Structure formats: structure tokens, C-alpha cells
């Protein structure tokens, strides 16, 4: 006869002093509602009433909310002007045009204000099919270097734009993101009267205060053979280079808008705005698009009908469910908790199959 005991046997016997039974008795568990799995509980059942009410309520709440969101979005006045094609329509080889240093790239566009645009009017530039979220791109920055003057040499994460050629001096700010800084500029005027564009406070305060150092100055930036985007004034600290700060908040989507500045006066309906664009930024080589956007804002943000439409759709769907279930309930009532529905009560043999 084999016995199967584990190591604990000897020890328990040793501790119990031979009184195996007494030791067992003291193991009697304590009573509590938790240990007996008898905690007071509420057991909601998916009854027709509950489900239909839930769907009705959701529907009733969501459709008005959708309408409110939609109207908020409708109140936003937005002017979108795609200029990359138009500004280069005279040139056959667009890539060569944009890459050439000598050509004059200014381009004039006329925008018509459809409705009154109350100040502040936000100016955005929009890039389409620009993958700021590409892994190679999004990783190519050094937050330490941006924040701290002492960390100037922390450029290992910045490849391939880490050090200037040929002297291997660290680039500040390093990395692809900074190197590709957007460099189109816009000048606005109405009837030959220049409109002031406020380019202050377009970046997040938190970025200016904590992410970009006030004692970090651009160094060796855009000095290599290959010029990416805009140049930076080496005498202004990074914390005040707001265009850079905005640009370096990378976008998660390939189509994105970034704040260019604000117009702090109302734009009257049917006013013609003349925009002089310095069309410098290369979107031609990868088939991207550039748009200039003027937009007011509302509590829900910019012009975006999606939330409103989605709310109405979901609300409608919920009402549809509610109505369907009511109909089902009326046409084919099914009492809950009726044991005659149990399969073993239906089959005569008492056993399944």
C-alpha cells in the first residue's frame, strides 16, 4: 500500500502534538456573508420593460443632443481654401519648382467671407496625407534637449537629423519633426488694408512653460546640405518659438490642421480677403495637399458635423430597437420565469436528446 502525503504531514503532526483531530476542529471557518457567498445583491434581469425603457430613454436623449451638436457645428463659419495646386498651376514640374531656392513663391488668393465671422477668427493650415504619425517621424525628437540647455547632446533619439554635417555638432532642436517645420506664410488684407494676425499664444501654455526651455536657443539648425522646412531665429529661445511648438505637437491623423494665428477683428459677410501666400512647403513630392482654413469656434470646437450626425444615428437606432422590441413583445409575448419553457420540461423523456 502506498501512501500519498506531502511534506506538510510531518509538520502538522508535529505541531498538533498528535492531536490531529483537535487541530482539524480549530480549522472550522468563520462565518461571514462574504465567505458564504451570500452578500446582499441586486440581480437585474433583462426584462422587456427594462430593455425597452432603456432604449427609449437613450433615443429620447440622444436625438435632441445630436440636434444641438449639429446646430453648434452649423453656427461655426469656416473658409477652406486649397492652394497647393492653384499656386503652382503654371509650373509643370512642381517638385522642381518647390525645391528651387531662387524662384519667387508668393501666390495670391482671394477668399470671400460667407457669413459674419466674429472674432477671434482662427487661422489654420491644413495638410493632407502628411504622416506626422509615422513611426520614424514621431520618434525623431529629443524632449530632454528641448527642455534643458544642459541636455544639448541628448540627440540619440533624433536620427537621422541629430548632428550637423560635417562637424558633428548637435542640432538644436534635433530630429525630423523640428527639421520639417512648416514654412508657408500668409499675409491677409481686406481692400488693401492689412489685417493683423496675432501669432502670440497659439501654442499650449503648458508646452511653453514646461516642455520647451526658455534658455534653449536654436543651434546648427537647418545648416546642413539638405534643408527641410522653416529656419528658426537663433536669438529667440525655443519657449517663444510658437510655430515650432505647435508643429511639434504631432498630429495623430494624416489629415490635420494646425493653428497659424488669430485674426482679432470681425470679418463682415461678403468681404473679400486677399491672402498672399509664400508657398514654400513641399507637399508635391508625396502628393499631399495644403489648405488654408479660417474658422470661428463654438462650445463643441470647430466645424464638425460628425458628433451631431452620430448622435442622431445612434438615437434613431435605439428608438428603432425600442419599437422593434415593443412590436415583438406585442406580437409574440414570452412570459419570463415560466418553467414550462425549460427544455427538460418540454421533452417527455426527461433527458436531453
Amino acid at each position, binding site marked *: *500500500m*502506498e*501512501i*500519498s502525503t*506531502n*511534506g506538510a*504531514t*510531518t*509538520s502538522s*503532526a508535529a*505541531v498538533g502534538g498528535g492531536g*490531529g*483531530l483537535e487541530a482539524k*476542529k480549530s480549522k*472550522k*471557518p468563520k*462565518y461571514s456573508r462574504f*465567505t*458564504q*457567498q451570500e*452578500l*446582499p*445583491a*441586486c*440581480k437585474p434581469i*433583462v426584462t422587456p420593460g427594462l430593455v425597452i425603457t432603456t432604449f427609449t430613454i437613450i433615443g429620447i436623449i*440622444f436625438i435632441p443632443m445630436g440636434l444641438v451638436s449639429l446646430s453648434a457645428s452649423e453656427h461655426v463659419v469656416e473658409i477652406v481654401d486649397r492652394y497647393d495646386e492653384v499656386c503652382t498651376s503654371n509650373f509643370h514640374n512642381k517638385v522642381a519648382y518647390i525645391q528651387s531656392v531662387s524662384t519667387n513663391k508668393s501666390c495670391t488668393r482671394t477668399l470671400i467671407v460667407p457669413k459674419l465671422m466674429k472674432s477671434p477668427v482662427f487661422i489654420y493650415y491644413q495638410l493632407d496625407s502628411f*504622416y506626422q*504619425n*509615422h513611426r*520614424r*517621424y514621431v520618434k525623431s525628437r529629443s524632449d530632454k534637449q528641448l527642455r534643458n540647455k544642459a541636455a544639448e547632446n541628448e540627440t540619440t533619439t533624433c536620427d537621422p537629423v541629430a548632428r550637423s554635417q560635417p562637424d558633428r555638432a548637435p542640432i538644436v532642436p534635433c530630429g525630423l519633426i523640428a527639421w520639417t517645420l512648416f514654412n508657408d506664410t500668409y499675409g491677409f488684407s481686406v481692400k488693401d488694408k492689412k489685417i493683423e494676425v496675432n501669432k502670440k499664444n497659439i501654442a*499650449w501654455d*503648458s508646452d511653453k512653460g*514646461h*516642455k520647451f526651455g526658455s534658455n534653449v536657443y536654436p543651434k546648427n539648425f537647418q545648416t546642413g546640405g539638405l534643408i*527641410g522646412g522653416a529656419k528658426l531665429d537663433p536669438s529667440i529661445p525655443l519657449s517663444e518659438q510658437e510655430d515650432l511648438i505647435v508643429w511639434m*505637437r*504631432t*498630429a*495623430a*491623423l494624416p489629415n490635420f*490642421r494646425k493653428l497659424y494665428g488669430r485674426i482679432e477683428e470681425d470679418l463682415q459677410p461678403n468681404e473679400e480677403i486677399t491672402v498672399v501666400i509664400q508657398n514654400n512647403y513641399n507637399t508635391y*513630392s508625396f*502628393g499631399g495637399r495644403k489648405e488654408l482654413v479660417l474658422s470661428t469656434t463654438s*462650445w463643441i*470646437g*470647430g466645424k464638425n458635423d*460628425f*458628433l451631431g450626425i*452620430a*448622435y442622431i444615428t*445612434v438615437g434613431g*437606432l435605439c428608438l428603432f*430597437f425600442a419599437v422593434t*422590441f415593443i412590436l415583438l413583445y406585442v406580437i409574440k409575448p*414570452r412570459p419570463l420565469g415560466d418553467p414550462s*419553457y425549460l427544455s427538460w420540461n418540454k421533452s417527455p*423523456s426527461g*433527458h436531453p436528446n
Partner: protein
Amino acid sequence: MKRYVYINDDESSKELYCDNRISNRKYTLWNFLPKNLWEQFSRFMNQYFLLIACLQLWSLITPVNPASTWGPLIFIFAVSASKEAWDDYNRYLSDKKANEKEVWVVRQGIKKHIQAQDIHVGNIVWLRENDEVPCDLVLIGTSDPQGLCYVETAALDGETDLKTRIIPSACMGIDFELLHKIKGVIECPNPDKDIRRFDANLRLFPPFIDNDVCPLTIKNTILQSCYLRNTEWACGVAVYTGNETKLGMSRGIPEPKLTAMDAMIDKLTGAIFVFQIVVVMVLGIAGNVWKDTEARKQWYVLYPDEGPWYEVLVIPLRFELLCSIMIPISIKVSLDLVKSLYAKFIDWDFEMIDQETGIPSHATNTAISEDLGQVEYILTDKTGTLTENRMIFRRCCISGIFYGNETGDALKDVELLDAVSGGSPDVVRFLTVMAVCNTVIPVKSKTGAILYKAQSQDEDALVNAAARLHMVFVNKNANILEIRFNGSVIHYEVLETLEFTSDRKRMSVVVKNCQNGKIILLSKGADEAILPHAYAGQQTRTFIEAVDQYAQLGLRTLCLAWCELKEDEYQEWSLMFKEASSTLVDREWRIAEVCQRLEHDLEVLGVTAIEDRLQDGVPETIETLRKAGINFWMLTGDKQNTAIQIALSCNFISPEPKGQLLLIDGKTEDEVFRSLERVLLTMRITSSEPKDVAFVVDGWALEIALKHYRKPFTELAILSRTAICCRVTPSQKAQLVELLKSCDYRTLAIGDGGNDVRMIQQADIGVGISGREGLQAARAADYSIGKFRFLKRLILVHGRYSYNRTAFLSQYSFYKSLVICFIQIFFSFISGVSGTSLFNSVSLMAYNVFYTSVPVLVSVLDKDLSEGTVMQHPQILFYCQAGRLLNPSTFAGWFGRSLFHAIVVFLITIHAYAYEKSEMEELSMVALSGCIWLQAFVVALETNCFTIIQHLAIWGNLVAFYVINLIFSAIPSSGMYTIMFRLCRQPSYWITMFLIVAAGMGPVLALKYFRYTYRPITI
């Protein structure tokens, strides 16, 4: 191989054998880390996670901070390692306690007090009353003049009666002082774990005795962890020490049992792994193509024209890392955690405490509770499991006269009482066998009453009944038994005891009546073991009738017989017996053969009938579990008729005409085959009828069937919902379990005695009843319960809940990992298939380890139906048995849900946060909070009963998510500085959240309602 132990020789054996240091430890201080890590890494899942974690160290491909995998990985490893370390430390402490215990040992002829760990093989160890035995000893002296001592072996085999141990004949009469100086050699086998056998020889060196070899048996030993009782002192020679003792050898980690659910989870994990590889390959190829066609044109990413050779691997590996979260790293830890909780619930259950003894149920194996809910076959022992194993002498038949038939209690039968007082010789002889032919030890209590310490409940019943009939077994003094009958005292000297074995099925004693010097053989045993040996000419027909009649009533029968022996006949046989007893090879078989020679020409005296009552609630339990679709097989060592009667009385089988009993018997292969074919044919015909058909097979036929006709027997086993196997041996029980397991059935074996241990260990689930036959079965079992009726609760309540809970937990774990993974995959399509991670490292880690694991861990407290409902409709268990809550199709449901939810979250996020709002950190937090909101509602929807804990966990977790992220947003150096504050201020953020919840949960709720109400799943 043998070992030679030189008694009292300090030098010779010191080097050869280990000292008495007990070590149950798995690790030492030095090898803990490497050994534990090695063990953990031998699991496939851990290897996979380690590979992922190592790949993440390569910064070129890692999408996130390596900490997001290393953190959880180290955490999970630390948890398992510290659990192991804690267990090992406790083992170390208990070892230390046992090792440092002080014992008296003879050293250089002087008794010394030393620590138990310093005992060497060959040392003489002295024990006092109530001392624990420190190692395996061969007795050489006791305080008792006859050389007896008593030991309690409960720690070894769980039997609580006292056992007699005796010093070898060679040591008999050695003076107390001389015991210090004794020298000799013990020839014994190498250590093994058989606690019933010790076949050795002892030879003492001069001047003690001539060079005579003295046989040693287990009777001459006291084993480690026993206790010395009722004996002032005893001393013995250490033969096995430390971990080489019988107890030490039998220690061992039983092979871990794997539940059907674990196997299914493993399978699903494998499927997900394959899916992951496919996704990685597709995305990897797409990524490389996109890179070569599109990304080259994108001047702003500055792809070099010539990359390193491994460049083609970079993108696939990035996706491998992104997708690695598909397999939830926390699932193993979560499952271990909830499984130990299930086990605790069993331990804590008040309704499963044995009211008589106060012993609660206990789950020894904490890992297999789900299997309880999937049991298909229950194989049960009869005696002590279905019955109480409390034997009461009810009837008897003495030389053809039936006693107790009218009253049902022979002890109250006036006729018998008259016969006793009248001194009818047949009755007196019958009572003498009852009182003498046993191994019972009478113990006088303080009040003067006599208590009997018996190993077998039958013997206990017989001795007690004899005492009630005025044949009182008063005292046992060495070999002298003192019997008081009707006022006179009779002394018997026990010459030999021919022990009971399950093969012989009888036991005998040879005693000498001290008054008249007559030598008599007294036998008792099963009818087929006694009746064939009756002397020629004795009419045994009445006894056969009596046995049948009693068996019909479900009583246990024993035949009693005796035989007078001639002096020379005994002497001659005694020599043979002595020789057989001292053989080292096949001793048991040799003894049986020798015993056979004496046990013939018996005069059968009569038949006793002992009742063993059914336990409370047995018929109800069997009926309920049968309704739950569980098939029952009864495996018993008892005889066919008794088994059938018990089966009838506990609803096991139905009486005619509702039920039908088919018999498989036969002595030869052909007979068995024909009978098997016949039964099989009947089974096939009746399987469509609503009739309870059961088959009965006895041990002999079973042996043949299993050996030669395994295939038809297997078919029969599948067809039959009920079976009774009688006269089966422990190994046959295990074979039957094996047979059912090989047909892919989940088996549960339940038993209470040592003969059930093998079946219990073999079965998927072993349940032991901590009954009167000791704790052996309960120790070997995965679950020990006090009464058979607790089985109902164990299966229907604990098993079912465990199954449901694990099904939810495991699938949910995959679901939540898949949601986040799908979002990452979708995001890769709008990020140039370059393997950018939408979520930051902290969020990813916290999502898997914290945000989603707390609510789901608490959801294991969920109860879908009340205990009462399940007990009332046990058919509900079909659902678990068939594995309807965790299978590829339910998993596909969860997979689909994760895909749907990922689409909802992703589409809503990128549209609501388009254009000027599409900032990376913000968008990622919006998507993450969308997931967290959905998780809260998914868990809430899947929860059937909300207690305060669940509310706290689900909604508290949601609040905790915001608190934690707001704290992170307040740290200037963190990547998401101010993000959460900005989001929480935007109305559009909250509007987006509600939209995600409504769009994600609406269809799920509608589908659930529709399916529950209009398309309920039939069981």
C-alpha cells in the same frame, strides 16, 4: 539491493547513509533564483513573453517603452516566485523544528541528548511515551515485559486506532542495561515507500545470542512520524533516516491535474497566437510595400536609400511587438488567483461542514474547481462512502437456526439470549470466534468500561456484539487473551495470527485454550473464502441460504468457522509458517500459501450479518446528480447481492419494471465474452427506451473483460449510464477510471478508504470522504468532504459557479486585450503601416494590469442563478458539462465583440477628434478612455448579480482611471502633462464618451435581450 545496518556502530555507516536531516525544501538560498526562473520559463507562455520583452529592448523596433512588458512580466514573476519562496520558507521552518527536536540516542554506550537531525543509521534511539518517532526504527526493547508497544500511525496512514508493535524474538528478554551495548546487523531492503511491508532479518552478535537469523516484519518497526502511546519507553535501531524513511520516500509532488477548461484556454491561446502571426505577417508585408512605394516619396521621414540587411524584418517585428498584447500577460496570474478563491469558498462553506465531527470540507488541489462543473461520470465506492461505515451486528445464523429475523436485531432475540444463558455449545463456539478471532485491542477507560480499538469496523461490531451476548473480551496481555463468559474467565494464548488480506478474504487465529491446552484454529471471512474449505460432509446449504438471504437485505455477511488442531500438526505447520515469514522475496504470497495449508477441514459455525446504514441524503443526492446528467458507477469490494441491494436502496438503480439489470459473469474467457455480447445487444436495443438499464459485473469477469475484450467493454461503458462492479480490487477500480478517461469523459472518483486511493489519484477529480477508515483517501484526494451528500453542493454549486466564472474571466481577458490590439492595428493603417503605437507605454501597461483586471477579478463573485434554483433544476448543469460557456463559438462571440468595440472606439475617436483636435496624446487618451468606459459597461452587462463589491470595483475603477490620469497629467515631466485636464474641460470629450458607450453597448444589449428572450439556448 540491500542495506546492512550495524547496530550501535558509530563509524561504519556514517558515510554510507544520510543523516536524519529531513528536508522538504525545493530550493536552497543559492539555487532559488536560477531554479525558480528555470521552472517558470519552462512554460511556453512565459517563454513567449520573455521573447517579446527581449525584442522590446531593441529600440529600433519597439513601439513602446520596454517597461510596458518588463514591468508586468517582472511583477508576475515576482508574484509566483514569492509565493514559492514563502511556501518553501514555511517548509524550511517545519523541517527545522523537526530536525532540532531533542532525542535520546546511545553514543559510545552512553545515552545522550542530541538533535534529531544527528541520528545516524545504526544508532539506538530511546523514546518515551507520547514521543514522536524521529526516523524509521527497528524495535529492540520496550518497557513491556512481553516486548510490546503501541503506536499511533495517524500521520502516516490516517488510521486513528492504536497498533501493536513487538520486538523481534531475538531481542526478547535482553536486560535494560545491556540494550546500550547491543551489537548486531540488520539486513534490510533499500528504502521504499511501502508502509505495510518491511521484509528484513536481524542477527545479533555474541555475546547476546547465537548467530541465529531472526525475521523482521513491519510489526517490529516503528516508523517516522508515528507516536508512542500507552508504553512507558521503547528503543530501536535507526534503519532509515532523513528523507529515506518510508514517509520521506512516499513524499512527492503528485502530477498536476489539468482541467478541461485549462486545456481549452490553452487551445484558444494557441489559436490567438496563430491569428497574431498571420496579422503580423500581413501587416509586415503591407508595411514593407508601403515603405518602398510611398515612404520613399515622403521626404520628411528621410528613409535612407540603402538600409541594413535586417531592414526587411524591422516592420514585421514592430507589429509583432504591437500585437503581443493580444495574449493577455495577466491571464495566468488572474486564473491562479481566482482558482484559489474558489478553493477557499469550498473550505469556508458552512453547509459542507460535517456536523458530527465539525470537520469542514477542504480543497487540497486548488486548481481544478472548474472540472467539478463538468463531471460526467462519478465512480463511487460503497462502504463508507454511500454508507456510514458504522457497523451494527443485526442477525446471525448459528448451525442452521436464524436469529434476529423477527425483531431485526439478534441481540434482542430471546431465543438467542436463552441459548447463550443455556450454554448451547454451538452458540458458545460461535461467540468465541466472534470475540477471539480478531486483532482488536481492548482498552480500559478510567470509568472501568472497556473500549475496543479496532482496525476494522466489522471486527469492532462483532466484538461488541459478543460482549452484549456475555462473551466479553476483557483484556489482552501480550499473547494472552482474557475472555469472560457468564461469570467464568477463560484465557486463550494466541499462537499465530493469519492476517486478513484482500486476496485471501479471510483471517484466522491459532489459539491455545490455557485451561485444557487444546489448540484451535478460528476463522472468519467471506462466504466464498470459508465455505469451500468446510470439512467434507458438512452441509453448507443452510449457510449459503443464509448468506443469500442476508445479502438480499443489504447486510454484510461473514462466515465463522473453527477447527481443532493436533499438537504435532500445528508444530509442523508452525515451522513452515516461520520460514515463510522470514523470506525476503514474495513473503506475502508465501505466507498466503502456508496459511492455506492450515485453513482446511473447517467446521462452519454460522453466518453473521452486519448492517451498514446508508448515509443521510444519499438517495436524494444520487437522484439530483443523475438529473444533472451525471452517470454513476459503483465500484465495491463487496459481494454482488449486497451491492445490488444497496444500489436499490439508494436510487442507484430502479427496481423492475422501470429498471433492468444486466449481468456479466462467467469464469472463462468464452463465457465472459458471450455474456458481454448479450448485454451489449440488450443495451443497444434499450438505449432508445426510457428505461434505466444498468449492468453488473464482478471482479473476475471484469478482469477478463478488461484484458481480452476491451473494445466491447468500452462500448458498453459508453452506452451504460449506470454500472455496478463488485468484488473489484483497488487496481481494477483505477483501471475502470482509466477506461472512462480514455473515452474522453470527465471522471470523478469518490471513496473513503485506502483501497480507493489509486482510483482517486487516477481520476480527473478525486474526492475523499474523511470517514472512519482513516484519512488516507482524503489525503490523496483533491477534495475531502465529510459526507457523501455534500457532493451535490460541491458539484452543483461550487463546480458550476467556478466553471461559469472562469469561462467569463478567461474570455474577457482575451476580449479586452484584443480590443486594444485591434485599435492599434487600425491605427497602423492611418499611420503609414509603420508600426506606431497609438497608446503610450504607461497606458498600455496600466490598461492590461490595472484598469481592466480589477473589475473582472471581482466579477468572479458573480452568481448567475441562485443556489436554490440550481439545486431545484439540476439539469442546468448540462450547460457546463457540455462546455457551452467556453468553446470556440463563444470565443468567436467575444472575438467579434472585441472587433466591433474596437471599430466603434476607433471610428468615433478619429472622426470626433479630427483636424485641429487631432493631437496625438489627446487622441490616444480619448481612445483609451473610450475603451475603459466600454469595459465598465461590458463587465456590468455580463454581471448577473451586483453586490456592493462589484459596484465598487466597476464604477470605482472608472473613477480610479480618471484620478490616476489626472495625477499623471499634473506631473510636468510626464508625456501627458495637462492632457487629461484639457480633455475633461471639453464638452466634446464627454459627448464622445457617451456616444462610444451607447454605440458600443446598444447593439450588444439588444442582441443579448433578443437571444435571451426569443432564442434561448436549449440545453
